[in-house]
């Protein structure tokens, strides 16, 4: 690996460390706020309408992934001065 690449890797890792701290705070809030409220509804759905639950499960995981990707990319951009990679 060239010196330039090594510097870039170091910079990326440092940005990730900062990102992890901010992200951990966001995720903790997310657990208590969203999952707490969704839990009961999802259990009910799983026991009574399994097919609806299957569709909702896929939509939830896809939706969360898109949002999290946007959040992490935004954080990276913020921490690395406009660049996300």
């Amino acid at each position, binding site marked *: *690996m*060239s010196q330039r*690449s090594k510097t*870039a*890797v170091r910079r*990326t890792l440092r940005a*990730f460390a900062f*990102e*992890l701290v901010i*992200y951990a705070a966001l*995720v903790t809030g*997310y*657990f208590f706020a969203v*999952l707490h409220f*969704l*839990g*009961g509804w*999802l*259990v009910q759905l*799983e026991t009574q309408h*399994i*097919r609806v*639950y*299957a*569709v*909702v*499960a*896929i939509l*939830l*995981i*896809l939706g*969360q*992934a*898109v949002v*999290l*990707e946007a*959040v*992490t*990319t935004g954080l*990276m951009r913020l921490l690395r001065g406009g660049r*996300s*990679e």
Partner: protein
Amino acid sequence: MFFPISHAHVSPIYLVVVGFLIGVLGGFFGVGGSFIAGPALRLVGVDWNFAVGTDLAHIVGKSVVAAKRHRALGNVDLRLGLIMALGTIGGAEVGAQLIEVFKRAGNVNFVVSVVSIVIYLGISTFMLWESWKTLARSKRSTAARKSTTPAAKTDDSAFQHVTKAIQRWRIPPMISLPVSGVTISLWIILLVAFVGGLCSGFLGGGAGYIRMPSMVYVLGIPTHLAVGTDLFEIIISASYGTFTHAIKGNVDILIALVMNTGAAVGAQLGAISTQYFAGPKIRLAFVPLPIIGAAIVIYTMFTGHKL
């Protein structure tokens, strides 16, 4: 934290850390990581059926994050991914039917274990030989003449002569893949995807351990593109798998959502890291993954404990 769908008590921090590790592997190698996620969920007392189904749901989320990042890096061939998804779903169905056949014969555990050990060790041995040979060859040629191309994103393979011979099979319809720089028969793409799907249905997980290498060695897709396209393809096939498992009551989506929060960061880290490594180095680093898978199966076979 209590997860009421699977009735399991699991620490969310544990789930986030496992998700993160699998995310890094997925982003860097284009694999689902089910050979780690399944046993990791079992380890904390999640029932085996929930471990398999929930792992698939988590793979969907992680692959979305990693594939989006790879797409931004220009590492996803959408046309190839969509064609492969068709073959994968067909193969997965045949694989699941094969499981039923061996279940009826009463030897499903033994057959699946032996086949998976042979496949895992075969892939690792072959990739070790090929990437080692390729790296040695490129080192010699670099010493002979100063290379002007950057180290990362370059690709070369000691198996290239076989790949070129496969690409010369003109069985219509021929498909042009400008993003990958390859023109190849549709049937070969479907066959590669079908074999990947067959392994997924028969051995479990997303089967990225066989699809990513076969995209490189059989189809001739550059490694970076194979990783990104495999992830895109996994979104479709794992979504299908999640749906079929969910309607059988095997998915605890709350566990998958928690794991995905860690995977989102890990997958980005893995995907970005691919920029700093050339294709043969990524393939060489891939070698231990199927060996870990084989070790888990051997452990299960000889001790009777499912990890």
